[in-house]
């Protein structure tokens, strides 16, 4: 039997529309060139780390036992007591827009392109 890719007009339109929507979302999100890791546990932000300001790698242990590995320009889950280990297997997050979560521990790490909110624009010293 012949196989034909049956792309119809509606298919193409649909795909274009969805891709345009994705583009719109990306532009909406804004392109800051900072790299901030926002760590939330159960919806509450517990850490905001400016990954560009990190000079040497370190580990960050959260109250729920989850351990994150922070390095210059990147962050990853390095230990969690959850079953599926999806979070640890995500690897290192390095670009704005990437996120990883440990759902059983309600921990979410999202990378944004904005500088950590609340941080001063500069420090006079």
């Amino acid at each position, binding site marked *: 039997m012949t196989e034909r890719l049956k792309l119809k007009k509606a*298919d193409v339109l649909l795909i274009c529309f969805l891709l345009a929507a994705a583009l719109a979302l990306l532009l909406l999100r804004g392109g800051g060139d900072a790299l901030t890791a926002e760590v*939330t546990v*159960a919806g509450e932000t517990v850490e905001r780390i400016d990954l560009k300001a990190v000079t040497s790698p370190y580990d960050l242990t959260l109250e729920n036992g989850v351990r994150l590995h922070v390095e210059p320009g990147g962050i990853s889950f390095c230990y969690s007591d959850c079953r*599926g280990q999806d979070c640890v297997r995500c690897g290192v997050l390095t670009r704005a*827009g990437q*996120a990883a979560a440990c759902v059983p521990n309600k921990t979410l790490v999202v990378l944004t392109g904005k500088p950590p909110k609340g941080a001063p624009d500069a420090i006079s010293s």
Partner: protein
Amino acid sequence: MLSLHHSEFRIPNSEFAHPKPSRPRYSPAKKAAVAGLMAALTLALSFVERMLCAALPLPPGVRPGLSNVAVMFSCIALGLPFALAIILVKAGFVMLVSGVYAGIISVSGGVLSVLSVALLARFAEKKLSFTGISVVSAVLHNFGQLTAASLLVGSALYLWMAPVLLISGVVFGAVTGMLLNAVLPALLKIVPKVENFEGK
């Protein structure tokens, strides 16, 4: 002779469909058996997908969605209830392997995705090919999972991933849609006595 029953779900306009497609009613037993097969196929594809994910450098949250091929076919050929059952089986499997939360996330994505397939197959059959339906179901699958994860984690920040999931949904949805087109003949062999689908 085959009786022409007007069945609930019709396969969208493809070369395999007779101008006035109709399927014979299968016995519930037959359907259940096929459903079982489809469930097994879904799990197998899911397993392959896991290995694929481990091997390829995919960003977190992005899934090729191979098992969707079997799920979509089940929805179209067997009907929504069976498709939902298969989704539950898959979610149960995920729960056993990765824990309750992962199972919940899987169910959310799966249900949303299957519902969309059912709706589109019924109402938009003339306009969309498998590819289009597959894209929509893949995108909705991702969003179902993302929403469930956001609710469980308690943070809306997860929605930052939305653009990535939209694009990957489109890309992989198209891929699985074309895969479905390709393997349809093989799948149809599993549901014999459907003479309408041969030849043309």
